[in-house]
């Protein structure tokens, strides 16, 4: 079973789009983050769900034309994973094994 990601407290995260940047206000820490694509889209996709990287990618593909830079070796899944890890460091997102989550719920 794979790793799944979820927003720790979805009701306490606010997104405010500005231009190519979006503000993310985290009520729990009181910190404002300024984030670029695809970070806010990942947060929106997760919402109150717990999803794997593959599921997030699939959801994003339905709504957006996903492209990575031509000279990049990263896949889109790598980019999503990197953003998820950053959100984990910021205390906004957490992850667990799918099995563990099933047991909890």
């Amino acid at each position, binding site marked *: 079973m794979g790793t799944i990601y979820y927003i720790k407290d979805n009701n306490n995260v606010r997104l405010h789009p500005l*231009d190519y940047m979006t*503000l993310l206000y985290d009520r729990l820490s009181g910190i*404002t983050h300024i984030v670029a694509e695809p970070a806010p889209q990942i947060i929106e996709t997760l919402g109150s769900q717990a999803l794997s990287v593959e599921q997030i990618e699939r959801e994003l593909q339905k709504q957006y034309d996903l492209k990575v830079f031509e000279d990049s070796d990263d896949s889109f899944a790598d980019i999503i994973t990197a953003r998820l890890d950053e959100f984990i460091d910021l205390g906004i997102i957490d992850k667990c094994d799918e099995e563990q989550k099933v047991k909890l719920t």
Partner: protein
Amino acid sequence: MFETTLKVGPASFRIGSDWKEPIALIDELYAAYPKPSLSDFTVRMEATKPWRRYIRPSVQIKGDYMLPDALPLPLEQAFLAAEMGLNLQMALGWRRHLILHASSAEKDGKALIMTGESGSGKSTLSALLGYNGWRFMGDEFALIDHDNGEAVPYPRMISLKNQAIAAMEKQVPNAVLGPLIEATPKGDIRHMVPPIDAIRNMEKSARPAMLLFPRFGHDTEVREVLPSEAFMRLTQASTNYVTMGEVGFNTLTRFIDETPVYAIDYQNSEDAISMVNELWSKI
């Protein structure tokens, strides 16, 4: 202890001093301001040691909010000490508005907000606008109302620095000025009493209609600023954004959503004034 009170915009202060002269000077320069019976903050100018009241008198700024490592100033700079004390109370203690370290002026019922680093010319520009068809609202803090997003005036004494002193004396020959305070950490400083209409109308707020980032000493240029850049710079320019939590977030995002933003570079104040008026005519 000698003391006085004064009200600047929505904020009331009680100012105490171990010496008579600084209080007399404050009363003289702030003569047109209301004298409230209740105060939001207290500022005190105290001798560092009892004998330093008389021998090489040295002023320590005390108050509700203090900087632990603030150095004392000589008595000749007591007025500057008092002004620094007033600013410090606002910057660290005021919660009723979002505070932007910015100058502001009003025309046609709408407010222009200007922010930038020390030396950008925001203070001088706001003062000059105040004598050129605008109402001066403040040269140090723009207070943004959390409920309706309006800019609330804070017309304290205008702080002129270095070459701005002579420039302003030339442009406004009948200006009421405080003593020239030489060799401060920011160079020479001289305070100027704001235009009387600014003081009389200091309760009249105005909706922000433009935000400018002026920059003195560069080739003349106007550029639009993206909301994200403006937001980031304003969080740095605000003394209480972090403290205000989500209330501050709401107030600042509303301000950014509703206000067009430009950066202007200029070589002299005449150019800057005409650039401001040109931009203003298009809103």
